[in-house]
């Protein structure tokens, strides 16, 4: 297998989701894995990829490639796949990566399996695992031809440091298509976030309507701080203006799978469930004992979160000493 992994970066940071996919690809153990970095000033990030299992890093570095737009990246990947004969290209889902994967599929007439939660090699055949229909079914999907393209749900794999060697770094220069250069980013408004971003966080404390009022999000924030985690929110409270969209988890927000997910005053509607149910451990506090969230929680606590959460935060802070 000749595998290529698209590494996404934001500023000077490689995104954990794509490093997780890289580590997974290396862990499959069938041939060397190459990572691709595209942007302005990305060569400096290449060495890091070695730690996650990349034997080689292909760098397309140019200031014109820095804006986070998909189509120029399709040009880069298409050239690399065609020139070097890669048979498998893997992506960690994001707003940017989804558009790159889909554009590349059309460019190469290659099969793209999206929303995968896992992948395995069954007797040399690559098989993708896709939870479907609100995760009630687990579908095994395959590819009829190469190149094979796969887009993984965010948080599918831990970014485990597997390799140690310095990767070989190779530069590539790509002639961009006219339609790939048409869109321009004229402004960026980046949300300031105090803690880790929710997609990268090991712990998420999420708040829903049950918090009762926008200012009660401080309960979630304080608990998140005590646990070293990030704050998430349901669509209902984001729509109500209690918390920014960047924190929204669910079908129309982000899909997360942290090690620990603490749901405060969240009923667990399907809209929200699809965005967080692959979390390792789910703890829910809700005063309604019949709330659907208890059906997929590892620890369900029926009670008043306004009583429980401050005590919990205090106990955790005390433990940390």
């Amino acid at each position, binding site marked *: 297998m000749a595998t290529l992994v698209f590494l996404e970066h934001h500023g000077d940071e490689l995104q954990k989701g794509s490093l997780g996919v890289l580590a997974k690809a290396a862990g499959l153990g069938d041939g060397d894995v190459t990572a691709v970095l595209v942007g302005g000033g990305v060569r400096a990030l290449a060495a890091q990829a070695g730690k996650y299992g990349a034997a080689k890093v292909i760098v397309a570095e140019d200031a014109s490639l820095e*804006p986070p*737009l998909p189509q120029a990246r*399709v040009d880069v990947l298409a050239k690399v796949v065609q020139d070097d004969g890669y048979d498998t290209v893997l992506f960690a889902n994001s707003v940017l990566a*989804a*558009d*790159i*994967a*889909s*554009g590349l*599929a*059309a*460019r190469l007439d290659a*099969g*793209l*399996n*999206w*929303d995968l939660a896992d992948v395995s090699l069954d007797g040399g055949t690559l*098989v993708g695992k896709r939870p*479907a*229909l609100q*995760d*009630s*079914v*687990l*579908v095994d*999907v*395959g*590819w*009829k031809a190469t190149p094979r393209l796969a887009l993984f749900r965010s948080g599918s794999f831990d970014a485990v440091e597997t390799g140690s060697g310095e990767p070989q770094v190779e530069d590539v220069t790509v002639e961009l298509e006219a*339609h790939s250069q*048409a*869109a*321009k*980013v*004229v*402004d*960026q*408004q980046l949300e300031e976030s105090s803690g880790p*971003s929710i997609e990268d966080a090991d*712990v998420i404390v999420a708040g829903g309507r049950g918090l009762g009022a926008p200012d009660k999000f401080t309960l979630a924030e304080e608990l998140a701080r005590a646990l070293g985690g990030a704050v998430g929110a349901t669509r209902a409270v984001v729509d109500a203006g209690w918390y920014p969209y960047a924190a929204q988890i669910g*079908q*129309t927000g982000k899909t997360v799978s942290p090690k*620990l997910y603490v749901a405060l005053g969240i009923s667990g509607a399907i809209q929200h469930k699809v965005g967080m149910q692959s979390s390792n*451990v789910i703890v829910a*506090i809700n005063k309604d004992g019949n709330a659907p969230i*208890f059906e*997929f*929680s*590892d*620890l*369900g*606590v*029926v*009670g*008043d979160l306004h009583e*429980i959460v401050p005590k*919990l935060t205090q*106990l*955790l802070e005390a*433990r940390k000493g």
Partner: protein
Amino acid sequence: MKIAVCVKHVPEGHSKIDPGSKRLDRSGEGSLNHFDANAVEEALRLKGDSDTEVVVVSMGPEKAADSLRKALAMGADRAVLVTDAALAGSDLVATSRVLAKALEREEADLVLFGQQASDADGAVLWAAVAERLRRPVVSQASELSISDGTVHVKRQTEFGYDVIETKLPAVVAVSDAINEPRYPSLKGIMGAKKKPSDILSLADLGLDASEAGEAGSKTEVLALGSPPARGDARKIEDDGNAAQAIVDFLAEKRLI
């Protein structure tokens, strides 16, 4: 100006997979994918009372005409349905090929998509279609405006917002935060029946059956299984010691 909106007819209620064909069961009632209603609404908002033409385009079973009729009732001017027995089982590569062919005939200035399909949760089609049309694409648009032949988009990302501009013709996928779709009025529903609708086959698009459906697809469904169940779940009532119980649980799971 001409705006084409791509819409999908999705099964109503809880979707099922047919174990025989391993495809989504589309035999029951269906409706307009609600995320696509945002795209139709945005097209109508951009049109306002100008002479812009809004064409709704769908690929699907014959019953998809119901969803197109709803879009016409909302205010779209014309509908195009691509339907053909050979389309069943189309994956991204095949679907984008067929849809791009149908859109090429329209030569629209702007092609709009909704943010995802509510049945299969697909959220990638626009980028493949844009690539085949060789047009710029912007997704997750939460605000959209057009001036002097340039489209301005506010795109939501994981990190905040990007403001992106591109010259028409272009492809844009709107987020469901962009607007609140209108309900068709009685007058709109009555009028929809009189609006022009084209029904096209693969042959009408100059495509061979081998280029669509399962034959034209590069991915396949191998097997259906059940997702792994959660381990031993616990549920407690707060007796005043719930906070301590949570701490003990987290310690036991080695999370703190």
